[in-house]
Every structure is written in C-alpha cells, then in structure tokens.
C-alpha cells in the first residue's frame, strides 16, 4: 500500500433514526469507518441491523420522514456530502457514487429497454451525445457479458442473473468512484452468484473502483472484501482487516456468526448458534446491545455501553472483554 | 402480546383510533339515532298538512321550513332517513353478499366456471349502473323492496371482482397447502382459512356502497322511479322540491346537506375500516 493509501471515503459518527408514531428507532448509532481508493469494505450483519440504512444515508436517499439523519459527517475525496444541496447531490448520485440493489427484478423499469436505461444515466451525468452514450452503453453490456445486440430488449427478456448484470452495467457506466452494492447476489442462484461476484471483482480491479459491500454472507465477504465491519443493532461492533477478522474474530457476536455456519465446524454434529433473536430496535438495551444474547455477559455489559477498543493495530472491537482472555 | 383479544374488537378499537373515521362514526351514529328516534323527536306528524303555513322558510317553529303542503320539512327528513338508510344498507349487504358468493365460486373453482362467470360480469358491468337501476325499477315497478333489488344488482359485479382477485392472489399461499397437508376438508380450507383472508376488501366496499346507494336511491326517487310519495325518502324530498329550486332553495338545500353529510360520514368510516382490517398494519 503506497499511493493508494490515502483515505477516500470517511464516515464519522453517522447517526440515523426512524420515527414511527411516537417511537424513535435508532437505526444507525455513531457509525464510523474509512475506505481507501480501490478497496472494498464489507458491512456484515443480520436483517434489520442497519446496513442498508448506512449505505442509503451516504447517497442521501433515505425517505425523510420517517428517516432522519441526526448527525455525523460523510466525506468523499475531502468533500463533505451532508452539507451539499440537493442539486449537487444529484450530480454525485449515479455519477460519483452508484448503487446496486438487492433485487434485480424490481431495480429495472419494465417499460424501458435495458439500453435506454443505461443511456439515460449516461446522458444525465456526462457530456455524451446520444450516439456516444449508446456506444458506451453497448460497450458496458459487452463488458458484463451480454451481447450488445440485446441493447434493444426489455427487462422481461432477461433472466435474473442477466438482469443483475444489466444493473451492474448501469451502475458502472459512469465510472463511479464508489460502488454501493446492497446484497448484490442474494436473489441469485449459487452458480450465477459465483459468476456475478467474479464479474464485480474483475471490473473493480479494472477501474480501481472502491466498494461498500452489504451482505449477510460471510463467504461472500471472504471472497470479495478487504476490510470488514460487523454491524449489530445499528452499531459497528467489530472492524478489522479481512484476514485479521477471519483468523482472530474477537467479539462474541462475530464468533457466534462463525459458529452458526454449517461447514465451519467440521466433524461436529451440532452447530453453535447464537441464542435468542436480535433486539427490538424500538427498545434497545441500555448497555451492550448484544448483552441479552451473549454467553459471556457480565453486570457491566448490561449497565453501560462498551467503547470501541483497538485490540491490535487496525482491529477494533466493541466489547468489554476485548483483548482480555475469555 | 399474551392477552387474548377478539379480531372484531381489535378492529373496532383501531377504527376508533383513526381521527377521520372517528368523526365519521360520530356523525353517522348521530344521524342514525336521530332518524330512529323520529317519532320522539319530530315536532309534527310526518304527513300533517298545514295549509296556512305553506312554503315557510326556516323558523323556530319549522327549523327546516315547510313544503308546498305545509308539511314540516325537519320531520320529513327525520322519517325519510329511516327509508334512505335502510335502502342503502340493505342494497349494500345484498349486492356485496351475492357478489361475494359468486366471486368465491369463480375464484376457488377456476377454469371454465370462472371464465363463464367473469364474462357475464363483464357484460353486466358494461351497462351503466344508473341505466341498469332505471331499467330494473321500471320493469319491477316502484316500491321499497324493488328499489333495494334494483340498487343491489349494480353492486354485484364489483363484489365478484374483488373477492375473485383476492382469492387469486391468496390461492397460492403456502398456508393453504399446509392446511391441505394436515387433512383440512375443502369447506374448512375455504371458510376457516381462505375466506377470513379475502373478505375485508368486500366489507370495506360494501360500507362505501351504502353511501353510493343512498345517492342512487335519491336519484331514482328524483326521476319518480324509487320509493313513491308521500313516503318521505330523502331522494323523494329532493324530487318534490325540484320545481321550486329558484323560489324556495331551502327545500332542496336541507335534504341535500343531510345526504351529503351521511355519505361523507360513511366514506370516512370505510376508509378507517380499510386500514383497520389490514393485518399488516395491526400492531
């Protein structure tokens, strides 16, 4: 790591709440992370942990109300995004930052040809004329492995994996600096998932794009990311380089996730799941959010929220016992 | 979570907690009670004529004025409400009920039965409902029962479509397969599992239909086909007053306001009912 070492995206103390009726839901609680040029950070966690909310608040596409960003700074290449006007954000969305959504079936407009959908984004963000944009769109389709003569076809003429390729082509057409991929392969079959993951990885290398990958699948994380942030109940509870996290997981929740994976516990007849269910986001525990499910819980865990501790260079963990012997 | 409450009660509580439908319920309940209590409240007899006091504007003695035969307009509106509300309610229940049964048959059995029923409904609903009402009223003759029949027939196709559409979207849900795999009988699957999950839009539609039927009945009376004078149905009151619209506008104004208010109240309740019966919105 030399010149690529500069921090490219910085998220600091991001805080988002959802208001429903009289209740407030703390969806994202003081989340901070950094991303270097060309690198991938994976946000891992279960349904409702707040992963997607983090990504959407970077793009500022959260519906307000009910969502409200209470605080935090998001800096992209030294530029503060949270204070930009809506017009300036328009330029960033789809241009500098692009997003790939989970469900390729609903992310495409069924009434427009896939070609036109790619062209539309290109015309909005670049100085292309119509012909140049069409050529670029065809080039993008070829790049994701779709013959360019399918440019004039409609989404229903494509299969699920093909649609996700189109979505990827759309996202990458404007050469974004940052790609937000929200469970990009969850809706796909395993063999298609493998194709799409390989494709994303190759394109990322080719264009040196940075990526925030949102997933619940530790296997996808292992194959695709450089750093990992484990998200639980709106907080990052562990944050480390991928190798470090997979070899020395520190937080009991991260350990629990690994214990829950079939195939990790070779030779043992039972998995070691985490007990209980994720907490109710409208009624989070006062102390550590994981305390009610934690096998090592102590009185201190219930009384106050543990701080993020750096247990080895670059490896952060939000647990009282972090760094100590359990 | 562990306290057992009935669905009906829960639904009622949720309608009440919706401000819009609460206003609707208060207005509607007031109108219904006042109309039912007409003999107690009404200052005059319904057909009492007072030829000395024809076409009197609103006053303390006659709050809504009097008509061309000196009958007290307030009294007639109170009594008329009994007919109008009963007409609306009966026609809505009858129409939606018949529609729901036909629609269930179409949705559950599918195939040729369904195609046939739906084509008939297409033809049925392609006739303007007002025209259909006029045709039926004209054929059967005027009168309360015939008006109910005429009005309800227009409601049938909507009920059929609603129920069938609901069943189509519900038919492939796994809980019905589950019911089959644990040996539920066909009637049990239909009535215990399927019907409660498809019936709410029809109930909502029927509620909204009450208001529609009242206006429709008023329209029928207006052209002389509905309930016949001297029955003081609201529409009939309007019809009587139509020749005097320029000279005595209050004669048309008061029944008009009452009809509009009733329909508004019912629509508010219907809106609240739709939200209250959606299981996804239940907390």
């Amino acid at each position, binding site marked *: 790591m030399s010149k690529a070492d500069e921090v490219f995206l910085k998220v600091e103390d991001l805080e988002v709440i959802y208001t429903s009726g009289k209740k407030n839901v703390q969806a994202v609680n003081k989340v901070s992370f950094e991303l270097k040029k060309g690198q991938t950070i994976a946000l891992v966690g279960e349904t409702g942990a707040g992963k997607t909310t983090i990504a959407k608040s970077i793009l500022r596409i959260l519906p307000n109300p009910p969502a409200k960003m209470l605080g935090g700074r998001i800096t992209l290449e030294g530029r503060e995004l949270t204070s930009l006007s809506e017009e300036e954000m328009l330029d960033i969305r789809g241009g500098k930052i692009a997003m790939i959504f989970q469900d390729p079936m609903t992310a495409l407009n069924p009434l427009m040809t896939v070609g036109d959908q790619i062209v539309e984004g290109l015309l909005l963000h670049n100085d292309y004329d119509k012909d140049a944009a069409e050529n670029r769109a065809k080039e993008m389709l070829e790049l994701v492995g779709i013959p360019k003569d399918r440019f004039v076809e409609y989404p229903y003429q494509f299969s699920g994996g093909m649609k996700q390729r189109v979505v990827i082509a759309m996202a990458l057409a404007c050469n974004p600096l940052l790609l937000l991929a929200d469970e990009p392969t969850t809706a796909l079959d395993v063999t298609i998932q*493998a194709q799409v993951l390989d494709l994303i990885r190759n394109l990322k290398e080719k264009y040196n794009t940075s990526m925030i990958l949102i997933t*619940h*699948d530790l*296997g996808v994380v292992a194959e695709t990311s450089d750093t990992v942030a484990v998200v639980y109940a709106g907080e990052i509870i562990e944050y480390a380089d991928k190798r470090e996290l997979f070899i020395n997981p520190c937080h009991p929740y991260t350990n629990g996730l690994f214990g829950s994976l*079939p195939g990790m516990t070779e030779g043992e007849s039972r*998995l070691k799941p*985490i007990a209980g269910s994720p907490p109710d986001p409208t009624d989070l525990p006062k102390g550590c959010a994981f305390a009610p499910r934690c096998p090592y819980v102590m009185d201190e865990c219930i009384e106050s929220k543990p701080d993020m501790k750096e247990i080895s260079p670059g490896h952060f963990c939000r647990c009282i016992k972090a760094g100590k012997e359990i | 979570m562990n306290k057992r409450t009935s669905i009906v009660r829960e639904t009622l509580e949720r309608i009440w907690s919706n401000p819009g439908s609460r206003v609707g319920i208060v207005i509607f309940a007031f109108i219904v009670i006042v109309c039912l209590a007409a003999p107690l409240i009404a200052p005059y007899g319904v057909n009492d004529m007072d030829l000395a006091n024809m076409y009197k504007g609103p006053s303390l003695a006659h709050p809504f004025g009097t008509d061309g035969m000196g009958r007290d307009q307030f009294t007639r509106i109170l009594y008329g409400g009994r007919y109008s509300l009963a007409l609306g309610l009966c026609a809505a229940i009858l129409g939606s009920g018949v529609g729901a049964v036909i629609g269930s048959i179409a949705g559950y059995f599918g195939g040729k039965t369904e195609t046939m029923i739906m084509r008939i409904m297409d033809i049925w609903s392609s006739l303007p409902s007002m025209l259909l009402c006029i045709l039926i009223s004209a054929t059967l003759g005027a009168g309360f029962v015939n008006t109910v029949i005429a009005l309800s027939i227009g409601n049938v196709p909507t009920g059929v479509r609603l129920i069938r559409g609901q069943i189509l979207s519900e038919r492939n849900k796994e809980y019905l397969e589950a019911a089959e795999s644990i*040996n539920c009988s066909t009637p049990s699957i239909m009535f215990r599992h399927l019907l409660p999950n498809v019936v709410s839009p029809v109930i909502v539609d029927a509620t909204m239909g009450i208001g529609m039927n009242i206006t429709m009945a008023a329209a029928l009376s207006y052209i002389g086909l509905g309930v016949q004078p001297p029955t003081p149905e609201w529409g009939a009151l309007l019809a009587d007053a139509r020749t005097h619209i320029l000279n005595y506008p209050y004669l048309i104004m008061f029944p008009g306001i009452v009809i509009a208010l009733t329909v508004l109240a019912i629509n508010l309740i219907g809106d609240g009912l739709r939200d209250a019966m959606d299981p996804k919105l239940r907390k």
Partner: protein
Amino acid sequence: MPLLEVKNLKKYFKVASGINHAVDDISFSVEKGETLGVVGESGCGKSTLGRTIIHLQEATDGNVILNGEDITHVHGKKLKEVREKMQIIFQDPYSSLNPRIRIEGTIEEPLRHSGKFKSKAELKEETNRLMELVGIDERLRNAYPHELDGGRRQRVGIARALALNPEFIVCDEPVSALDVSIQAQVLNLLMDLQDSTKVSYMFVTHDLSVVKHISDNICVMYLGQLVEKASTEELFRNTLHPYTKALLSAIPSVDINNPMKRLELKGEITSPIDPGPGCRFAARCPFATSKCKEPQKLREISKGHFVSCCRIEEIN
C-alpha cells in the same frame, strides 16, 4: 425395508409453451431416521418433487412406496392416513402461517383433524407439549404470526408438522429465509427432533453447506433429473458430475486460506419445458461433447454412488 421408496417418479405440467418436465424419472429411497438432502438451483424441480411425494400434487407417473405399500394414488380415508405419516415444513415462514389464526390455533389444528384427542384439556396439553418441544414460549400461544420473528414462526411451522408424529417430513428450504444465527438454531432443532423421534427428513435446499451438515445421503438435481446421488461423505470426497463440482466450487468459502478453485459455468439454467433427449446440463457444461446429445443413464460408479454423465471417466 426402507421407510420410503420413490421409483421413476414423474411430474409433468402443461404450460402454454409445451410440457414442463418438472420431475423427470427420479428414484431414491430413505431409511428410517435418515436425512436425504436434495440439492439444486431454482427451477430444478426439487420443491415439486417433495410436494408430489406427500400428495400435495398428483404424480404423472411412477411410484411412491411408504412402508412397503404403494401410496402413489390414494384417496379419501387412505389419503388422510398417508398425510398423517408424511408432513411438510415450508420455506417461507411468512406465508406458510395463516395470518388470522393464532399460534395456538395453528398448532392445534392438525390435532383436531386427526380426531385422536377427545377433550379440550387433552388438546391443550398436547399443544403445550409441542410448543415446548420446538421451543416456543408459552406466553406466545395467543399471538398472531405477524407478532413473531422469522425464526419463531418457523418453529411454529415445525410444531404443526410434528403434531401428528409423522414418519417422514419434507423440509422445503426451511432455513433459507432466515438469518445465519437463527438458521443454525433451527437446524439444530431439526436434528435434535430427529434424534428423539427417529423421523426421516427429505431436506430440499440450494445450499450445499447446509445439506452437507444435515444429510446422510444427497441427491443433486438439475432440470428435473437426478445427476448425482451418493452418501454425503462420498459425494464431497469424490465429486464426479461436473454440475455437482460447479455447484460445490461456487459456494463462497469462508476459509480464507484455501479459496476454492472455481469451475466456471457458461450461461444460465435453461428451461425444463420440452427438453431434448440428451444431457440437460450439456449447454452449460465445460466438458460437453457430441456424446452428450444422447440420453444419459444413471450409472452406479462405486457402491451407492450414482452419476448420470457419460464422460466422468475422461474428466476425473
């Protein structure tokens, strides 16, 4: 004698563009207390296979034999008996429970239909036992399904399936809609229940790591046909069919020190509507030759290990 034998089972559907060969000539057997994993991608007919076996759909051809008795075409009282012995757990815990029936009602229903419980007290006692068995808190008995999270709902589904003490349960992707930590809880529950009741499972899934964990034997399906069948140990040690290999290598591995070498497949799954006579996987297979256009036979390569591919000797 195996508990369940399936012989040359076929299930065809008529669709607008032809005939969908959803399940095409499938045979296997399941012993008492054993788990058979059925693996394949969406559209391979694995769910239809399960539903056809337990009579939610009528078989087009072939036989289903339970305890030595042919039950392929049974009706009325006999069907009722068969259904009490064979149950199903569904994939989607959100749509497999009736949203307007309380948890208690859902679990109680099969008991009532069986007619084995005479009094209300007996019913209640049995419902309590089932709830405890699958780990649902007593206080949830009057809750509606939407008040429960995915894991608890799936437990309710399991309790309903277990209510009549079945001998065979089709588990149709029972954990794929659940979060990882909940998934592990449910898998453990299913395995504990098997230990205590000796029930047999047919575990239908697309997830090879789950199937490896829970199954004794595995069938790999592709477009309605069996492509490979072996004991779990044998299948993972000695993977023969190119499709199974591709499927195995496609799972993103959490073992970051030994990333799996990927066997890339061309294109995507084709359709099982009016398929040609040859190998259905040939269009995507990196090893396909003209020989693959001929019909393929399921061959026993070693004891209990069946493969349907004419080129395995050359490619392995």
